[in-house]
């Protein structure tokens, strides 16, 4: 899967879960920039898992704080 495709799909998931209408930058932090609360942070991980049909380890998933983090993380899973 191309990186650009991952980026687009991650942003779509983020926009849906966090109910964001506008532009989402690659470096956007889910909490600081997009206003995610703790429940939404958990929902995001679940939504990524579903979108990309992967299972993210809980400890590592919690360290994913930005769109870029998520893309890097998912790219690693998709490759392997």
């Amino acid at each position, binding site marked *: 899967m191309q990186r650009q495709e991952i980026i687009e799909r991650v942003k779509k998931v983020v926009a849906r879960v*966090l*109910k*964001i209408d506008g532009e989402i930058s690659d470096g956007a*932090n889910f*909490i*600081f*920039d*997009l*206003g995610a*609360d*703790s429940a939404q942070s958990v929902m995001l991980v679940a939504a990524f898992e579903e979108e990309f049909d992967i299972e993210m380890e809980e400890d590592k998933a919690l360290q994913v*704080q930005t769109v870029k983090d998520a893309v890097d993380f998912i790219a690693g899973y998709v490759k392997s």
Partner: protein
Amino acid sequence: MAQSSQVKSRNLDSLFYPQSVAVVGTNKVPGTVPHDILVNILKSDFQGIVYPVSPKEKSISGLKAYKYVSDIEDPIDLAIIVFPSSVVHMALEQCGRKGVKSVVIISAGFKEVGGEGILRENQIKEIAGRYGISLIGPNCLGVINTDPSSKLNASFARKMPEEGSIGFLSQSGALCTAVLDYARAKHIGFSKFISFGNKADVSEIDLLRYLRDDPKTRVILIYLEEISDGRGIMEAARDIIASTGKPVLAIKSGRTAEGASAAASHTGSLAGSDEVIDAAFRQAGIIRCRDIEVMFNKAIAFAYQPLPQGNRVAIVTNAGGPGVLTTDAAVKEGLRLASFSEATTDVLRKSLPKTANTKNPVDVIGDARADRYHIAVSETLKDPQVDGVFVILTPQSMTDIEAIAREVCSVAGQSSKPLYASFMGEADVAPGVDILQRNRVPHYILPESMPMAFSTAYRFKNRTLAGPAADGIPESPNAAKARAVLDTAIRSGRRVLLEDEAAPVLELYGLPVLKGGTAGSAEQAAELARRMGFPVVMKVLSEDIVHKFDVKGVVLNIATPDAAAEAYRSILAETARFRPDAKIKGVLVRKMIPAGEEVILGIKRDPSFGPVVMFGLGGIFVELFRDVQFRIAPVDMETADAMVRGIQASGILTGARGKTPRDTAAVCACLTALSRLAADCPQIAELDINPVIVMEAGQGCFVADAKIMM
């Protein structure tokens, strides 16, 4: 009284009197901290401007919300950060760039959780330092300022407290909410209320100094869980008390003796952290309270009423029993029941019923109404032989509780002497108690609490702060030599210096050490004894043996060379029997001095307060009686004298019951010298001089055994 060092306080006005406040990371979800903090500020009738900062919301509670703090056009004095800990550093960095002066970080998840939390805390410390931000928290409840010119409740406490003159500092956030609820029920008002949490930047010492200079604060209360800079707290408290006369009351939780059990010395085992805190607080003039209720019982006496000028109290009651209970408590607290002047007695006799008791305690009889209370309270209060009045009421069917409460408030308001009240009971007296509390008459559920609060205020009035500040006593001219001896020992891997090696160090500080020698054989022991002159004392030298008598390692009153040789053999045999594992260095032979009283002197290094000196009745039962006094080192002669007189058994030394007074001045000189040694030589972890033999007055004292642990 100690001179005030008057360290300038940090300017925290942007924290307590901000013109503008940003709540960073707030949201629209009621019942969550980020939301409720914003609403609490709005509800507190804050006099400045509030800016919600929320990444997602356009508006919150009718206010325009900003995505970032940097989006706010106006300058911001104070930011309250309520984001989760993982992004707090980002918010703080933005605050720094924006030029925000003060920040309160409410969020938890920092030092208190360990691991990554410690890294996060270091990161926010660095950011605050870089931008010169005054930072409160993290992991705290927030700050409250009731001053009408600010009216700021930047906390998640449910309600703004009443305005008052008590400044409250707390390391625990959750406790604050309970304290506020407790205080509100009793109409206890606060000037400032601060939960300082992990104190990453602004410390309790900074806040103490701020309250020192805060004209709205008359009484300072502090709740502490751990003390990182004990001497700093002592200095700040001394300074507050000396320069402003504001009392400082403290609760230090964790009153356990942890760390004291595994000590290698008598001093170490006796000086638990709690004993050291007691001593330090006493030295600094801090009033230590065992719980929240006692703290507020004392605080309201300070906050509402003048300080007593003397200890003569009058009791006015409508029931005999409570009057007696209060009398007993007053006497126990060192107060005196006032003897009324003839004029007072005359008025009381003429105005009260024949069955009333016009002597102290004045019993106005069960059917007393407000007029009788008025006469008894106002007459006793104005008697020049009375320094304060305790008013007791029991709710009898004839008692007009509210009218009496109003009368008591009116009389109290016109007097320059303290008046406390106890309306006993709960349900029936509640309306009267409410009147007293609203009118700032200290009220106590139990009448016995009145003498306790009064005597605290009286002692504070007559306070003398013990000794100079730590840097007030100069280093000994022999300090370098002593440190060199200790350093040499440490370099060669030594951790313990027994009497033979400890004595030269003590001698450098002028302690009266007796000459002795170490015998490695029975023959040497006999020869040393002959040279010393009989009688001699002999004792085992072993790092492994703390209680020498327990292992029969001491022989006294040896009168001949043969007896010395025999004593040597006996000591080795007995110690080998009791402690086969102990490594024996030899046997010390020393001239025996005539009998005297035995006392113990010691040093311990406390992690929070540094070197501590101990004094107590010595000998083999020191740990059994625990009759010891501690002070933070160094101490002057006056403090040393207070230590000597402070033990329960001080009469043994000062000449009680016909005993010959002992040379306490010589003991005090030893204590001051030892405390100087403790302050000069950080190499010493613990030190015991047990015993010091104290001769009759003018005859001095002698170090009979000593041990230094490094």
